């Protein structure tokens, strides 16, 4: 049988150079997890006593929920047992009620086998229960979630569940009350900066001054986003001959952020100066001025959602705008956002919103 080439074995086949950095730098142990001190402290206790409750992790994307539970599972079971003891399901797998009834239930009711020594010589706690990780649990249907309820209780002696989700409100109450909840906060800039710098050093990234803080600022507490930005920028700049340092401009372009002058222009047709507050003389262009500005946004291909977000960030914190116009503007922005989420036409929604803000600015 020498004619058969040896089959490349799973993970080994990945060229580490082409691996996404997000995967490459996933924390190996829970102590590596950035800036979730409270959660990590609780989990470390649980790890020491090898007694785990059912868990519900929730928080915005990129705050380390999946990383934490994977690292925890790895520390509990070690590499050998990981496959046999941990079942990871996410939204890309079929997760209707039938899967809950068959796959999850079958896995949950199996009694875990006794284990010998681990192959890498270390000792792992290997507690006598299995772990089922339901990633992106908020996209499970209500029915599937209710089917889980009894399963969680019946097999709680030999199986622990960990639900991971963005919106805790989408998890039905009976499930949530069976779990101990862990909230993951958006990451603080100081703690993520160390991590990003470490990755940049490891990968030999050259960046201009101020680029790394800019990445963190644009990522808004989402570490995965920050790492992806860094890697994409490195791809763009590392591919040229010779490699050039990463510039702030390319980070702006990658993140899809609308340039400031466009936002300033939009604000000025609405009668707002970016620094001074309301200045109605700027809004002389009237209806046509607003319409041309909005058309320009569409023609240059910016996404209305992003534009809206940046208008909000520029307009609402301005201290010189009186309360009434500001509240009216905030309301217009909120309603426009809802409209966009529900699939409204981008140009119409944005135009309507801008007109309403313009109108609001005139009311004093």
């Amino acid at each position, binding site marked *: 049988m020498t004619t058969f080439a040896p089959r490349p074995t799973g993970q080994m086949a990945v060229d580490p150079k082409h691996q996404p950095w997000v995967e490459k730098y996933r924390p190996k142990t829970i102590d590596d997890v950035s800036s979730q001190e409270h959660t990590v402290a609780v989990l470390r206790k649980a790890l020491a006593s090898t007694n785990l409750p059912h868990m519900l992790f929730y928080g915005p994307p990129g705050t380390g929920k999946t990383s934490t539970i994977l690292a925890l599972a790895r520390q509990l079971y070690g590499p050998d047992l990981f496959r046999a003891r941990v079942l990871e399901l996410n*939204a890309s797998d079929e997760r209707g009620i039938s899967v809950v009834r068959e796959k999850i239930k079958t896995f949950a009711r199996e009694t875990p086998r006794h284990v010998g020594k681990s192959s890498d010589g270390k000792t792992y706690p290997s507690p006598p229960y299995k772990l089922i990780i339901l990633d992106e649990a908020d996209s499970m249907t209500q029915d599937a979630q209710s089917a889980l309820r009894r399963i969680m209780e019946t097999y709680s002696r030999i199986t622990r569940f960990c639900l991971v989700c963005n919106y805790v409100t989408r998890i039905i109450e009976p499930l949530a009350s069976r779990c101990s909840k862990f909230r993951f906060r958006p990451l603080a800039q100081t703690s993520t900066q160390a991590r990003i710098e470490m990755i940049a050093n490891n990968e030999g990234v050259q960046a201009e001054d101020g680029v790394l803080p800019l990445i963190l600022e644009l990522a808004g507490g989402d570490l995965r986003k920050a790492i992806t930005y860094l890697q994409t920028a490195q791809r763009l700049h590392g591919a040229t001959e010779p490699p050039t340092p990463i510039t702030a401009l390319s980070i702006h372009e990658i993140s899809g952020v609308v340039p400031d002058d466009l936002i300033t222009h939009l604000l000025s047709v609405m009668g707002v100066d970016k620094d001074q507050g309301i200045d109605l003389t700027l809004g002389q262009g009237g209806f046509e001025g607003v319409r041309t500005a909005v058309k320009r946004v569409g023609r240059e*291909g910016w996404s209305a959602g992003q534009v809206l977000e940046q208008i909000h960030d520029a307009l609402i914190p301005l201290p010189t705008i009186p309360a009434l116009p500001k509240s009216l503007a905030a309301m217009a922005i909120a309603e426009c956002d809802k409209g966009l989420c529900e699939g409204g036409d981008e140009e119409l929604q944005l135009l309507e919103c801008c*007109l309403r803000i313009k109108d609001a600015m005139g009311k004093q």
Partner: protein
Amino acid sequence: MSLWVDKYRPRSLDELHYHPELSSRLRSLAASGDFPHILFYGPSGAGKKTRIMCTLRELYGPGVEKLRIDQRVFVTPSNRKLDVNVVQSNYHIELTPSDVGMYDRVVIQDILKEIAQTQQVDLNAKQRFKVVIINEADALTRDAQAALRRTMEKYMNNMRLILCANSTSKIIAPIRSRCLLVRVAAPSDDEMTKVLQHVAKKERFSLPSPVTKSILSTSQGNLRKALLVFEAMKMQKPDLSGDIEVAKPDWETYCSKIADSIIQEQSAQRLLDVRGKIYELLSHCIPPTVVLKTISERIVDKVDDALKPQIVHWAAYYELRMRMGSKKIFHLEAFIAKVMTVYKQFNMIGYTEDYE
């Protein structure tokens, strides 16, 4: 004989006429061997698909242009059969999952897993991965987009995704954070002129500037439309002399007629007439959103400045309701009735109440 749009579509990154810095970035990405998932977005007719095909050619060589069209059958969990047309070459596969409406998740899951689990067999292929192009990615349901999330990371070895969308607003954040966002802005007027002149030169005739101007004003940054209009004009009057009217599509003239008749008279009888006309448009497959937008734009041009924001407000309001409801005509009618009320009220007492 093919249309000019297809005949003069650039085939490689070097032939592209505008956004040179974007082309060079795409080229260096294709050469680096570390190709990310990409999300192309921009208005229609800006050249997204052209750029995607050029990038693929840069990745795999001319082999990608040998296309074949297959019909694939997918089975939903509820045992319904779905037929989906896919265009594919040896190196890539292109699909429009939003064609199957709410079942797009099944198509995404099946096809991606299939591609992801098969390795490239062609030893001469330049890249180890295949590319999956998903058109109209902003029309994917949330479920389908959620199904993409983990797959994108897990099968990065064998597969790269290229998503093509008009806007990123409707793409969920987790997908956006996993892709390289590439914005393709519509060409500026100068750039459009250059392209038109290039085509004229290839077809061996000269292009008078008034013609260019009228093409530019109708196409509004949509290069595909510009070229189509251009060819139609050339067909109509081969010497392109004198003042040629750019032929407006029938439905557009019809819409402005509707707008005019709304402004002329506001009565129940008129509403009934307009309703008949709108039915006529809808039965000719003009998308209701387009009808509403065209009518409202025309009305806005004709009314008093103080009234314009109101018209836009109601247009946005009823357009949204139309998307959420199922019977389009109700909302179109409601919009027209509302506009009539607002207009009449304004004319009689000189002002209108606030938005509610």
